[in-house]
């Protein structure tokens, strides 16, 4: 197995008496699409915050691409290639879709202490940004202020912004949040096209999507990873079925067994 690109060792986050992240050790190999699932309140958001650098862990380390990044803030991590998208759409609403993406390109190109040249006519920013918009099927909407895009389009833009930074690892925080069925399906097929080209850590609620996309799945319950493995292994894991899929699923499985 190749050297893991992202690795956490015994990550712990406490809020007072509450343990939101409980000795989480994850490891992602380059090129894989790894999904994290878990019921509400399992600590997914807290985990993402620690991986992206918005929140400092109480204990444990995070390594990325051969470097300890535990103490680095979010922008530094992003420049190393660990880039996230947000569960709740986070765009610059007054900027056009193109501006939003160009901003990410600009960030990739290094510091922005350039004071004179007009950024909107700078081919170094605009060309790559247009390419990414084409990739996510938003080219036609490039000049529309992002705040006026539909919810689905905004979710696409959210991913496009992350892609434009040419990340080594994409941290997708519930990219399908709030989407309709059809939109979700489109997003799934889009993510399919990203698979293998990027290493992806997908945090998602939508089970169908996860099982359709993921190479490996980790299950987070009460801040603990209770299982990691291939989709089928995870699906079959009784502990997962009990803790995550709940009694209902167990009953269903039991009923299935009875019927058989």
């Amino acid at each position, binding site marked *: 197995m190749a050297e893991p690109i992202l690795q956490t060792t015994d990550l712990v986050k406490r809020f007072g008496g509450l343990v939101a992240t409980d000795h989480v050790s994850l490891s992602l190999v380059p090129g894989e699409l790894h999904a994290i699932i878990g019921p509400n309140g399992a600590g997914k958001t807290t985990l993402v915050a620690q991986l*992206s650098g918005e929140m400092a862990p109480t204990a444990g380390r995070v390594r990325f691409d051969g470097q300890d990044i535990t103490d680095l*803030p*979010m*922008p*530094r*991590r*992003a*420049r190393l290639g660990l*880039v*996230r*998208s*947000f569960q709740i759409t*986070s*765009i*610059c*609403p*007054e*900027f*056009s879709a193109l*501006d939003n993406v*160009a*901003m*990410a390109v*600009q*960030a*990739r190109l290094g510091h*922005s*202490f*350039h*004071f*004179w*040249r*007009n*950024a*909107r006519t*700078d081919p170094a*920013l605009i060309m790559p940004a247009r390419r990414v918009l084409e990739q996510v099927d938003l080219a036609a909407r490039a*000049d529309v*202020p992002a705040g*006026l895009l539909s919810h689905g389009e905004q979710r696409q833009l959210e991913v496009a*912004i*992350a892609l*434009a*930074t040419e990340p080594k690892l994409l941290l997708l925080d519930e990219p399908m949040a709030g989407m309709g069925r059809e939109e979700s399906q489109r997003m799934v097929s889009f993510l399919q096209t990203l698979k293998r080209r990027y290493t992806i850590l997908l945090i998602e609620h939508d089970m169908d999507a996860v099982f359709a996309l993921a190479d490996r799945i980790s299950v987070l319950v009460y801040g603990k990873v209770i299982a990691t493995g291939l989709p089928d292994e995870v699906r079959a894991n009784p502990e997962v079925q009990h803790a995550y899929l709940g009694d209902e699923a167990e009953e269903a499985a039991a009923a299935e067994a009875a019927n058989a």
Partner: protein
Amino acid sequence: MSEKPSAFLSRRGGATTLCFAVLALIPPLAGWLHEPFLIRQFIQIMAMGLAAMSLDLILGYGGLVSFGHAAFVGLAGYTVGILDFHAGDGSLFLGLIPGTTNALIAWPAAIAVSMLAAALIGLVCTQAGGTVFFMLTLAFAQMVYYGFSGWTLYGSDEGLSMGGRSELPLLDISDNTNFYYFCFAVLLLCFLAMRAIVGSRFGMVLRGVRQNERRLAAVGVPTRPYRLAAFVIAGGFAGVAGILLANYQTFVSPGDLSWTRSGELISMVVLGGLGSLIGPVLGAAAYLLLRLVIGSYTTHWAVVFGPFLILVVLFARAGLFGFVVRGREV
């Protein structure tokens, strides 16, 4: 917002050109009306307008609510005034630096002082965001205010009177019309510079900071250095405005850097239109002319202006400039 960018730009461009054209015609108009006072009034409008424009850079584009901007305006003014003072009696500033009335020395020094102060104050203030930023800028501005109001050598509360305007080679700015066109040129240059800045990569980051700071951090832009840089740049342009104001009055006083002056500057920016650069100049014109016109009918002009300001804030955020071009570039 739905207008095509080209049409939109030309409309903005047209309005901006019109503003400058009107400003260029004020001196002949004043001559025609036999009203030299008009020239002086519009020098003040341009100088205050430039100060408001520089505030717009951080307020309108960067979303940084600074309530201490007048401090940077005043600091530059005081630098010019203090150098003039020492030139007058041949003494040394702090026993070290000789005074001068030469604009080529005094003015860069004044801008440097404003930028340096902005850097120091900004270093502390940009650490915090939002409310604390607002209160810190206010408090530091008060510190500067009390510093000068207690500095006996430079007139403390009574202010410091200059011997005359600074001396420029080739141009005699002690003449009001000359000085008017000089201010006009400075305003135009500063406007062009600031317009370039807000359109640049730096400007895009600055606007991004206002809209969604977290988003920028997530793509790898550490926002604080940019906020700080913007604060310093705005301080520098405020310094330019301060130089013009000090030369306009040939007098500087703590009143120039009081918090109410900062409040006036914010009012001008919002009145004219946030994030439009030229809008604040319109705002300054509106503010000062309203005060003059209403003030000539009643001394209680603030009774009208206070509620007017509130109404503009609540219902007409695009300001005067927005009223002219109907829309706002993003």
